[in-house]
């Protein structure tokens, strides 16, 4: 009998330990994410009409603080929670690019010289914490976004508003170009020079008002109060957050109050995300993710009524650091553009890429109609010529670090790109970093990244938005978006000049934008490898009759409701 005592005791101990672990696990998960439990319960009920809408995203937002966030995942939530003086129409496709009054009573009036914008704040507005909104909060908001800094701050604030650059550099205590009167709600903004897309600048979530006194630092896990039909709560870094109805919201014409709360779950496994939506255990697949090709046939056959491809203005490219070897050499950059096989890149991306060589995407005014300067990308790359160009450049054998995200297919694209660089004569190695920290990491000027993945989805339908990425004035120490540090005087002056044209008159200067974009392609400053099409994929629970797929922000969460 004695010989059985020890094994028996061991088994009993194991069982007790297992029970204890299970109990601990259960209590921790239920206490930490009651919302998730609610969500999954609602989701598992299939056709239930109650509960929040469950969105699954493959990448965490870079920050949910509007003063920092600049990725699509951040913008989706922020534009509903942080309304600016202007905002965008809640409409499908490109119609959503129309600027409408937000917290201002009307669109700002512009002086005859185009340098002074005047707007009046609507009365009776409150933040999501109940505090009253003041006109001076606008100045504070722009100062905060400039100081943190938001990725577009250098270009859209520092480059346009009088005194904003000095403030960001610490040379002034406030932005001299912004005057606000709390008594009347009048806000006056003085620009350095006319800027045709300034109404769009005011519509950025980063321009969405936050209370004066909000800490001048990025607050990704506890975003500040804002004014909007929704507010962001329960942020668990890199795991989940919720976008819930704001009880302090005062309805504004053109801005719907929304139907349902949104529960967002972050999971880098896009395959399981897509399967979850297919099986109705989640409701919305993030449009900025790519559905793996292995699942596409299944989705197309089983869920054709709730899956479609959307074309938005977006460009996918590899940035090349023009300040550092080897891509300081134009010949080395030309080698990349000449040799990179876009057909291969398209296959790696589940066939979602449209080939092209110009920075401005096809649906954007200013997209060139001429031939690509270094061969037709639809025919694949010219590897032999690329090798020859690398030899000519004298950069053969130069070590290159290729920066990459982890998510599919971006990592696969960069793995292939690394292999390609090695084939044409460089000594390339790949550096893969977490999705959530990728852009802030490569946006550090101190890191000085050589090359890697980048993409741009339009902030607003104006070519000047894309040229943020190649203007010298946009280069900033942190959160830099001009990853290649392109600083070409011709690009700077021409884009600044064309940027002064109001959005309503863009068609009249389309030819000039085309010429500039052709010049950019000729200089091979960036290696475009295609224009992305995006998946619009939902569960059967979503009422698609009212759902809006916005031209700038993808799914308009305020339009989503359960059947």
């Amino acid at each position: 009998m004695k010989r059985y005592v020890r094994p028996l005791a061991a088994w009993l101990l194991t069982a007790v330990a297992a029970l204890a672990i299970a109990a601990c696990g259960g209590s921790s998960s239920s206490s930490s994410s009651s919302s998730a439990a609610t969500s999954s319960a609602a989701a598992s009920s299939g056709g239930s009409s109650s509960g929040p809408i469950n969105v699954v995203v493959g990448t965490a937002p870079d920050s949910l603080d509007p003063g920092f966030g600049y990725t699509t995942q951040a913008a989706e939530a922020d534009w509903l929670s942080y309304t600016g003086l202007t905002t965008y129409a809640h409409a499908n496709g490109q119609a959503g690019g129309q600027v409408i009054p937000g917290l201002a009573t009307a669109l700002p009036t512009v002086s005859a010289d185009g340098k002074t914008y005047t707007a009046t704040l609507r009365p009776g507005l409150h933040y999501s914490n109940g505090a009253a909104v003041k006109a001076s909060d606008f100045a504070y908001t722009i100062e905060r976004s400039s100081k943190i800094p938001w990725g577009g701050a250098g270009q859209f604030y520092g480059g346009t508003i009088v005194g904003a650059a000095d403030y960001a550099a610490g040379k002034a205590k406030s932005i001299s170009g912004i005057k606000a009167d709390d008594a009347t709600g009048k806000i006056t903004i003085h620009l350095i020079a006319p800027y045709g897309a300034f109404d769009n600048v005011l519509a950025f979530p980063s321009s969405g008002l936050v209370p004066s006194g909000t800490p001048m630092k990025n607050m990704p896990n506890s975003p500040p109060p804002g004014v909007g039909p929704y507010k962001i709560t329960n942020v668990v870094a890199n795991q989940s957050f919720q976008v819930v109805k704001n009880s302090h919201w005062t309805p504004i014409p053109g801005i719907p109050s929304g139907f349902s709360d949104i529960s967002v779950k972050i999971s880098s496994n896009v395959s399981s995300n897509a399967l979850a939506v297919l099986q109705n255990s989640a409701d919305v697949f993030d449009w900025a993710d790519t559905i793996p090709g292995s699942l596409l046939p299944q989705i197309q056959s089983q869920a054709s009524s709730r899956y479609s491809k959307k074309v938005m203005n977006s460009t996918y490219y590899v940035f090349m650091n023009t300040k550092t070897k080897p891509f300081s050499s134009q010949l080395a950059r030309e080698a990349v553009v000449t040799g990179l096989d876009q057909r291969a890149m398209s296959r790696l991306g589940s066939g979602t890429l449209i080939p092209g060589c110009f920075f401005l995407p096809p649906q954007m005014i200013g997209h060139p109609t001429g031939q690509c300067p270094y061969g037709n990308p639809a025919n694949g790359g010219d590897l032999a010529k690329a090798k020859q160009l690398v030899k000519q450049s004298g950069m053969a054998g130069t070590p290159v670090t290729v920066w990459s995200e982890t998510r599919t297919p971006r990592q696969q694209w960069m793995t292939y790109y690394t292999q390609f660089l090695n084939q044409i004569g460089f000594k390339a190695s790949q550096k893969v970093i977490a999705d959530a920290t990728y852009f802030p990491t490569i946006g550090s000027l101190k890191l000085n990244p050589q090359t890697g993945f980048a993409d741009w989805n339009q902030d607003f339908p104006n070519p000047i938005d894309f040229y943020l990425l190649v203007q010298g004035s946009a280069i900033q120490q942190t959160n830099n978006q001009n990853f290649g540090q392109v600083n070409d005087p011709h690009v700077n002056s021409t884009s600044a000049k064309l940027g002064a044209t109001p959005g309503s008159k863009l068609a009249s200067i389309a030819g000039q934008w085309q010429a500039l974009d052709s010049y950019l392609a000729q200089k091979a400053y960036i290696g475009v490898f295609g224009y992305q099409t995006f998946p619009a994929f939902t569960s059967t629970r979503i009422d698609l009759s009212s759902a809006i797929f916005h031209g700038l922000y993808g799914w308009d969460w305020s339009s989503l409701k359960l059947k």
Partner: protein
Amino acid sequence: MATTSASGTEFSGEIPVSSEGVGEIPPGIGPWQLAWRRLRRNKTALFFGGLFLLIVVLCMLAPVYSHQIAHAGPADGFPDKQIHVGGTTEYVLGVTGIPIGPTWHSRFFLGADGSGRDVAVRLLYGGRNSLEIGAIATIITMILGVLLGVVAGYLRGFSDGVIRFGLDVLWAFPAVLLGVSLGVSIAVGGLGPIKGNSLYVPALVIGIVYIPYVARPVRGQVLGLREREFVDAARQQGLSHSRIMLFEILPNLASTIVVFMPLILANAILLEAGLSYLGAGVQPPNASWGTMISDGINSIPAAFHNVLVPGIMLVLTVMSINVFGDGLRDALDPRAKVRIAH
């Protein structure tokens, strides 16, 4: 008979000691010969030992297979290439990115992965990397674990306190969590001369993580050995501490070390696969079975082979090491003689 319980470890509950006091040993047969006799009788252990050897040999031949048969390197992707299989021409990756399945021919014998790379080539190179990392990690763990365990157990006092505290700190972290933390932090910036994407990074991390799993039971065994008569005799003869540890204590730990090695190796390979799956181990484009499973997850269900093939190899390897290791333990454990006698 002093057997020291290794309570609290993931490994074997009993640590074998030297064959001292084994009365039933036939005259003229030493303990190692006896162990070999026992091992030869354990056909299952020998079969799995052979299987492990076969896997090692296959993985070592990866460059030969890559150059002479598959004509592709482990990092070479062919997403836009067409190959001829059974009279038809197929793209390595379909238009929607679905990789080609096993062709059972020299090229893409086990199909392609989501990046258009040859799975068979990556499987062999991945095995090479996994085994290499496992072996280096095992060596690091065994050397440092035994060294710390012997010093702490023999010297006791202050040295024991410091070493035990350090081991307890390491022990307090779950192995995977500690491995991920160390792996990610070292992978970003490297460690001295070791680059962030070097295979030595996961090897070093795993080697460090498992030190307490060896050092603690060794220390426990040394605590018993240091009180034995032969150690007293050595002290009386005026031998220094280091000589006693090296020439008196260490030889008596030989069977323990031999038993621990396969166990550590199997666990190191498993942990490497886990870390690589989580992105904290082998860095792309290097292959390992863990990274292959991670890469293959997004190909399910259309290309299930991308996960299945490295998964099977991982299971076979770890199982073969474990079964062989169990056989080795039985052979070295003096209590096993009872079973032999029966």
